[in-house]
């Protein structure tokens, strides 16, 4: 299985050059207790980061259904960030462990159908890590900028 996985490469075409006015959209789904609180702290500390992320609040990273990720990639997003509490710190004791496993599987699946692995990312950000949140957003945004607009499986491409 490992070998097979290694052979899978992105089928996203780099030649799809981004139009000059293109700005990536990142959908960030954050757990309320750590990452969302951390992102609030980024604000309170006035730490600046790229403006492309749109944050959605969920109670816990375990609430994130793979469906949300796929739906985002299909409709509005060029990249998705899921963020939760550090292992052991989940407000609901064990939610982030489920989230981590579910995320890894989803990511493998997305890679298998051709998405570049940088399109969806996962991070642990605590309520105290305002600065870390800014760094994570910066990294995800830069990664997605490098990849360009997401055309793969976008709904509008099918309707055409």
């Amino acid at each position, binding site marked *: 299985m490992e070998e097979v996985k290694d052979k899978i490469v992105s089928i996203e075409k780099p030649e799809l050059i981004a139009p000059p006015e293109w700005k990536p959209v990142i959908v960030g789904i954050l757990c309320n207790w750590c990452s969302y609180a951390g992102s609030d702290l980024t604000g309170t500390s006035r730490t600046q980061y790229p403006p492309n992320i749109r944050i959605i609040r969920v109670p816990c990273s375990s609430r994130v259904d793979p*469906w949300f990720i796929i739906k985002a990639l299909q409709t509005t997003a060029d990249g998705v960030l899921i963020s939760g509490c550090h292992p052991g710190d989940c407000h609901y004791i064990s939610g982030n462990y489920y989230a981590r496993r579910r995320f890894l599987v989803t990511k493998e699946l997305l890679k298998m159908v051709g998405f570049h692995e940088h399109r969806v990312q996962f991070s642990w950000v605590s309520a105290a890590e305002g600065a870390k949140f800014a760094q994570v957003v910066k990294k995800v945004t830069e990664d997605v900028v490098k990849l360009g607009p997401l055309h793969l499986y976008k709904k509008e491409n099918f309707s055409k």
Partner: protein
Amino acid sequence: MARVGVFVCFCGANIADFVDVPTVVEEAKKIREVKFAVDYKYMCSDPGQQMIRDAIVQYRLTSIVVAACSPRMHEKTFRKALSDAGMNPYLLEVANIREHSSWVHQKDKKAATDKAGDLVRMAVAKSIANEQLHEISVPVTKRALVIGGGIAGIQAALDIADARIPVTLVERSPSIGGRMAQLDETFPTLDCSQCILTPKMVDVASHPFIELIPYSEVIELDGYVGNYKAKIRKKASYVNFKSCTGCGACWQKCPVKVPNEYNMGIDTRKAIYTPFPQAVPNKPVIDAKHCTMLLKGKCGICAKFCEKGAIDFKMTDEVIEREIGAVVVATGYDLWDATPYEEYGVGRYKDIINSLEFERMVSANGPTGGLPVRPSDGKVPKTVVFIKCVGSRDKAKGIEFCSKICCMYTAKHAILLHHKVHDSRAYIFYMDIRAAGKGYEEFVNRAQVETGAVYLRGRVSKIYQKGEKLMVRGEDGQLGQEVEVEADLVVLATAIIPDKENPALARLLGISYDKYGYLSEAHPKLRPVETAKAGIFLAGCTQAPKDIPETVAQASACAAKVCGLFAGDTIKKDPMVSTVNKDFCSGCQNCVKVCPYQAIVTEDIPLGHGAKEMRTVAKINEGVCQGCGSCVAICRSMAINLAGFTDPQIINEIVAI
């Protein structure tokens, strides 16, 4: 169709300087469902809230979006504004355009404005899928369970019971009192521990609102806040407490000797024993592990001497069930076993003891009649070396934390030593002196001045035997040289660790604990006595090392929390909980497995309308559910939804960008 009202806040200059607020309002007005949009200086102020209330009525709005600061800040405020206008408060959504836009994109007003516009659109889309929710109210059983009868448990039980709330106090050992019952005099005032503790123990026994169940353990806890059901195993004591008068004829005659836990094993007790003279309840129990009658069927002497016929070798463990509304866990601490300090020769040299052993020796009711003695030859020591931070603050030995109380009790030990053996001298090896507390620094100064104790700043590197003496080699950091002290006795202030059964107890209660086994509070600063599980509270050293004043303060805080919880006949709970749509549920029970709170059970329902065959479906107890959403995402049949964060709400947000 939905009729949404949008209220955009300037937050003075906080938002308005970096986001073009009027543009956000104009963008919002373009959304089909938005029937009203407006901006204002301070939305959270009274006039701001009045605008919301007025618009709700005037425009017959069906949901509200406030674009302002983080929902973690003012969601409650705005929900209340909705309620006041007669609208269901859960029809509110907050777009976080301050923390998530104006404060973090201060160099690009256009981008910040665009983003704010998106955030408003997402919130509008979500709000359209919002449903009316109603606070859940669950009934409460007004009885508290206190686990552990040390000073923490005693104080919590007394405070709760004084508020006329029944308490069940479960103590594992035959008597309440805990570690405090083993102490001699206590810092920082040197009042006798027994003298201040025993009256409280007696109060527990005689309090009309306290049910004391000694020699027992909690073995099961089901249910949720306000509605727990506990199973308590009462170990067989083989003594009928009803007829026993506590005369003591039995244990005086018992021939079996066992190391005495109360005296840290310095002397012995019998197989039938009362842990100490002031024990509450003052009734003996038979230690089944050592009684020859119970082990081999031989002896029975105690039964012969008991005039009341109270001894009953046929007694068995008993399981008692209690319905309770809240739990206070107060299982205390233990001392770390210093054997890993091979360089000290712990275990090899008899004249190295730990702090509680010293405490027992200097206690008037102790095994040595109140005098410190050398275990090797029974001689009274003249030179005593105290070593602090043994285990504590030593990452290499596995304990990184500071045990907090050792600095103080070691100073106390120096004073007690001086009181008992006037011509003695204490040498204290220390890393730091941490004496933060009312009267604590003064107490340490007193120890140094009054007793002439020599404080040596540095670690001990080696202890070895030389004739009768123990040579303690360490460094004197102040002189910058190695020192060697010829000691008669060495006392180790070993680390304070939680009770070894804490992890098992935590699992059965459904609460969390840290890597050392200390039980975890819900928030280290703002919720220090609550656990993450509603209705379960922590008091005393079970949460972290503490001295008596702090333990008592925390215990009283627990009592206040319990009384608050029991103040009404019902408890109000956030309605953001999950529910199962039985029609969709396939009965796979994946959700049952993932729920961290065991909130999901199964039930059997008819296969179809009026059918005889049954099928199994999941059922969520809304009282227990904490609303994490784990079950929603795991459900392959999409049968579960979490109110406030339903699939349609989240998908609406995603597609609205």
